[in-house]
C-alpha cells in the first residue's frame, strides 16, 4: 500500500440537511484519484476536541467502500453541529463551574498532530465566520455552502435548499388541501428570516394567493383585499405563505411581534420590559398567528395559522441536491489541490468558482426586486403585499 500524498478532513459544521452524505461521496471519489487520505470529524469539531465522548474515536476513517454503502438520504455519517463553536466550548472547571473556553488553539494543534492539512466544512453563515477566524489562525478551511434558506450570497445555490424547497412544496400542498376542505384561509409560515426564497418559490409552485417576504414590506389591507375578491368570486379558501422575517410596511399594522409579548411584565428580570422586548426575533409560529388573527379581522373569513418550522429540514434529498453535493465535494478537493486557502466553493452557473471566505461572510443572498421569481409571482396574480 502506498503512503497517502496528503491527509484532509471533512465535517458538517451546520445542522441537519437532507443528503449530507452526497458531499462525502464527492470528496472521497476525488481524493481517491489523488491518493489522499480522508478522515471525517464527528459533530462539527467535537470529534477531534472530545474524542473521549465517542465509542471508538471522534474521527472516522473514511473510505469509498464505506461512503458508497451509506444511503444519501440516510443519517449523516459525521453527525451535525448546530451549535459547534471552538471559540466558546462549554466546559466544567475544576471548581465545578460552567465556563465557555476558547479551544481554537487546541483544535489547530490537534489537527496538526493528526497531520491534517486542510478541513472541508459543510455549513452556512455561522460556520463560515468561524472558519474564517480559524483560517486567520492558520487553518486551511474550505467551505461547502449549505443552507435551507439559500441565503449564502457567495453562491447561486446552497446545498440543501432544493431538497428543503421540495419538502416545503409538499407540505404547502397539504395545507392548501386543508384550506380547501375546511373553507378557510391557511396562513403558513416558513423559514426565512432575512430572505424569502423558500416562501416565494414554494408559493409559486403551489399557486398561493399571497406570499409575504422580508424583502418586500407588506400592507395587510392589500392582502385582505386580494383574499376578499377571491372569496367574492366563489372560491371559498385561500393560502397565504409568509417567510418568518416578513415585515409590515406600517407600524400601525400587526407585525410578527404584535401578540408575542402582550402579557409580559418584568418584575424579576432587568431590562426585560415590554418595550425592550418588542422587537425580538420571534420563535417560529408567532408570525403565522399574528397574520391569521389580523386577516380574520380584515376578511371576516376563518383563518388557520400553521408554522412548518423544523419539519422542512427532514425528508429525502432531491436529485439536484445529490448532484450538487457530489459536485461541491469534488470541487472542495480540487480547491485544496490547486493550493487555494480559506475559500468557499461557489456554484456560479455554468462554473464552480472559489470565493475567499473574507468576501463570503456577512452577505445575505436576498431576492432582487427585478428577480424572475418576483416577476413570475406578479404575473400569476400572487399578492406580495405591496
Amino acid at each position: 500500500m502506498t503512503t497517502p500524498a496528503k491527509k484532509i478532513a471533512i465535517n458538517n459544521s451546520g445542522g441537519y440537511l437532507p443528503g449530507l452524505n452526497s458531499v462525502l461521496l464527492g470528496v472521497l471519489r476525488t481524493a481517491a484519484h489523488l491518493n489522499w487520505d480522508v478522515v471525517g470529524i464527528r459533530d462539527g469539531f467535537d470529534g477531534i476536541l472530545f474524542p473521549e465522548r465517542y465509542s471508538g474515536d471522534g474521527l472516522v476513517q473514511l473510505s469509498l467502500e464505506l461512503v458508497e454503502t451509506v444511503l444519501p438520504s440516510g443519517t449523516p455519517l459525521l453527525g451535525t453541529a448546530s451549535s459547534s463553536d471552538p471559540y466558546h466550548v462549554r466546559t466544567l472547571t475544576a471548581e465545578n463551574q460552567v465556563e465557555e473556553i476558547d479551544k481554537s488553539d487546541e483544535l489547530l494543534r490537534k489537527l496538526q498532530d493528526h497531520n491534517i492539512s486542510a478541513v472541508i466544512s459543510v455549513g452556512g453563515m455561522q460556520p463560515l465566520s468561524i472558519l474564517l477566524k480559524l483560517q486567520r489562525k492558520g487553518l486551511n478551511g474550505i467551505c461547502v455552502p449549505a443552507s435551507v434558506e439559500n441565503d449564502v450570497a457567495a453562491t447561486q445555490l446552497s446545498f440543501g435548499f432544493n431538497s428543503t424547497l421540495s419538502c416545503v412544496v409538499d407540505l404547502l400542498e397539504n395545507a392548501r388541501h386543508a384550506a380547501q376542505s375546511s373553507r378557510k384561509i391557511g396562513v403558513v409560515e416558513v423559514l426565512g428570516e432575512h430572505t424569502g426564497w423558500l416562501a416565494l418559490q414554494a408559493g409559486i409552485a403551489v399557486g398561493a394567493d399571497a406570499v409575504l417576504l422580508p424583502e418586500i414590506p407588506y400592507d395587510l389591507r392589500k392582502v385582505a383585499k386580494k383574499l376578499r375578491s377571491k372569496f367574492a368570486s366563489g372560491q371559498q379558501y385561500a393560502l397565504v405563505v409568509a417567510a418568518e422575517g416578513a415585515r409590515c410596511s406600517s407600524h400601525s399594522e400587526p407585525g410578527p411581534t404584535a401578540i408575542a409579548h402582550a402579557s409580559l411584565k418584568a418584575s424579576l428580570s432587568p431590562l426585560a420590559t415590554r418595550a425592550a422586548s418588542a422587537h425580538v426575533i420571534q420563535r417560529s409560529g408567532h408570525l403565522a398567528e399574528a397574520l391569521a388573527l389580523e386577516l380574520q379581522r380584515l376578511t371576516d373569513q376563518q383563518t388557520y395559522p400553521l408554522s412548518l418550522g423544523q419539519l422542512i429540514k427532514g425528508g429525502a434529498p432531491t436529485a439536484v441536491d445529490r448532484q450538487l453535493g457530489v459536485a461541491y465535494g469534488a470541487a472542495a478537493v480540487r480547491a485544496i489541490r490547486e493550493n487555494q486557502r480559506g475559500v468557499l466553493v461557489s456554484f456560479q452557473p455554468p462554473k464552480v468558482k472559489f470565493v475567499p471566505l473574507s468576501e463570503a461572510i456577512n452577505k445575505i443572498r436576498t431576492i432582487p426586486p427585478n428577480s424572475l421569481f418576483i416577476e413570475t409571482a406578479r404575473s400569476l396574480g400572487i399578492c406580495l403585499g405591496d
Partner: protein
Amino acid sequence: MKPVDPQNPTGLVLNIQHFCTHDGPGMRTTVFLKGCSLRCKWCSNPESIHPKPELAYDNKKCIGKKQCGFCLKPPFPENAFYVIDGPDDRVHVNWDLASECGQDCASICPTGAIYLFGQKMTVDQVLDEVDQDSSFYRESGGGITLSGGECLLQPDFAAALLKGAHERGIDTTIETACNVPWRFVEQVLPHVDTMLHDHKLTDPVRYRKWTGVDNSRILENFKKAYEAFPNTRFIARTPLIPGVNDDEAHIRSVLAFIRPYKNVIDYELLPYHRFGESKYSFLGRIYEMEDFHAPTEESLAHLRAIIDEQFGRKRAS
C-alpha cells in the same frame, strides 16, 4: 491597572433595579451581579451569565447605515457589523467576529444601539444608590437584595456590600443557587438576613443535564449553611419549568430536604416565564427553551397546596 482598594472593593454590576417586590421581604432594591456558574436552559437573565462586560445590540435603536454607519468603520473589528441589501439599512451583528468589542466600541454608537452589559462599581457607589430608597425599606420591611448571575461568585464584593448595608441599617437578602466553593458562602452569609436559594432539581444527573453541573456540592452547601447560620432566614425556591421539574416527586423531595431545618421558613414556586427570551437576541444567542410554556394555574395550585400542607397553612382560594 489600578490597584484594588481592600476597603472599597469593586464588583461587576449588571443592573440595579428599584422597587422590587419578589426578591425578599418588603420593597427591595435588587443589585444584579454579573457572572454565573450554571447554564440553566431557561435562564431569564442571559446577560448576567458571563463574568465580563459584554457587548449587546438593540437593532430597534439603530438609525441605519445612511444616517450613521460609525460601527462599519474602525475601531470596530473588521466585519463585526454589516448591512444586508434591501429596504432596511439597519446594522446586523456578526457575533462570531464582534466578540472582541469592548467599551470603546460601545461608546462610539451615538444612539445607544450598541451597548455593554456590566460595569465596575465600588461598594460605596452601589450603596449610595441603594440608600436612596431607604424610606421605602423602613415602611415595608424591605432592603437590599443581591442577585445575579450568582452573587456569591464575587465574595469579597458581596460581603463588603452587605456588611456596608448592615452598617447603614439596611436589611440584606441574597438570591443564590450556591454552586460555589463553601468558603465563598461562609464569607458572605454572616452579613445576610435572608437567603433565597434555588432547589432547581433533585436528581444530580438531571440537574447536570439542565444546568450544566450536578447538584451534590450545592446540596452540601445548603445543609452546611442551614446548620452553620441558625439565625439566618432561608427561603427555598424552585423555578417551575413544565416537563423539567414540575412534578410532585421533586416538590416532595425538596420539602423532605428542608423541613428538618427550622430556619428554612418557606418554600416558594416561581412559575417559568419567557421574560428573558428577548435578551438572547440582544446578545446574539439562541434561546433553547423556545418550545416551553408557563405552567398551568391548576398545576401550580396543586403543587403549592402540597407545600402549604407541609408548612401547616391554608391558602386563600
